[in-house]
């Protein structure tokens, strides 16, 4: 599946359904009706987009802190230990994003759990197992309403 060969149908599917996904018994049929194709085509396209890694899923994105606790954590990891420490961090089911970034503070990850105590425990455990400090940067205020992302098809 090549993004560069996408036609109007694929583009409209990606652009128009990042929010307000139909909450009706046959949502893929409702999407098909709006796009002017059939339900099977929508299901096939979504399946292939997920397989190709273009979309990670079809479903809800939750507001932080409304249905659980989370934080952004960061660490200064020596260059020769990045792979090892990143792998250790990714092991945790509670970690759902883990990136290396260009900064002295070079490993950044999000920890989320049903309760704040578990988030704190994961950070403590990572610090203890790696012998490195973990900086805890919990969200204090969210400004974005997240309407999805406008793709530029040029």
């Amino acid at each position: 599946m090549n993004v560069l060969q996408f036609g109007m149908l694929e583009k409209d599917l990606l652009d128009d359904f990042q929010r307000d996904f139909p909450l009706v018994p046959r949502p893929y049929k409702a999407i098909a009706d709006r796009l002017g194709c059939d339900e099977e085509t929508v299901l096939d396209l979504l399946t292939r987009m997920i397989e190709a890694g273009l979309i990670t899923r079809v479903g809800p994105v939750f507001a932080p802190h409304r249905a659980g606790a989370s934080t952004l954590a960061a660490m200064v990891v020596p260059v020769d230990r990045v792979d090892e420490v990143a792998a250790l961090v990714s092991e945790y089911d509670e970690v759902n994003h883990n990136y290396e970034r260009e900064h002295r503070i070079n490993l950044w990850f999000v920890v989320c759990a049903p309760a704040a105590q578990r988030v704190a425990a994961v950070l403590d455990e990572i610090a203890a197992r790696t012998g490195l400090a973990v900086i805890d940067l919990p969200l204090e205020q969210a400004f974005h309403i997240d309407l999805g992302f406008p793709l530029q098809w040029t």
Partner: protein
Amino acid sequence: MDVTAKESELIAAVQDGLPLDPRPYAAVGRRVGLTEAEVIAGLRRLVERGVIRRFGLVLSHRDLGYRANGMVVWDIPDDAVATIGARLAALPYVTLCYRRPRRPPDWHYNLFCMIHGRDRKAVERQIEDAADAVGAGDCPRAVLFSTRRFKQRGARYADCPATEAM
């Protein structure tokens, strides 16, 4: 926590994505012991209350050709951070915008936003534009481009809602 125990079960059943089945809500209902109508009504309430921020296709920016992903951090005076945060969040190329605590002496930035672009130059241009547009041109800032993605989202774990990066 703003959700009931039953809602937590529903959240756990949909957080990894809806089944690609013609009747996805019925399939979810079978997993949690609800009818299709109850699943739809339950999800609608979570959307209305803002527990679900949006419901739809979740894009992988990197794999769609938006290879540069810049986390921009700003040191904004405390009395201006709410105003500047709201202005930044309104820009179309800003996908997330959060206030977080400073952690001196290691970390002095209190406002975080995420900017995705096709390449690094495009992101850098947008950051310049954003700084001017929101009146933060004089505030210290840094851009932390991601160099490697080790994990983008959790595997199959219960009760831990999928929020977005950062």
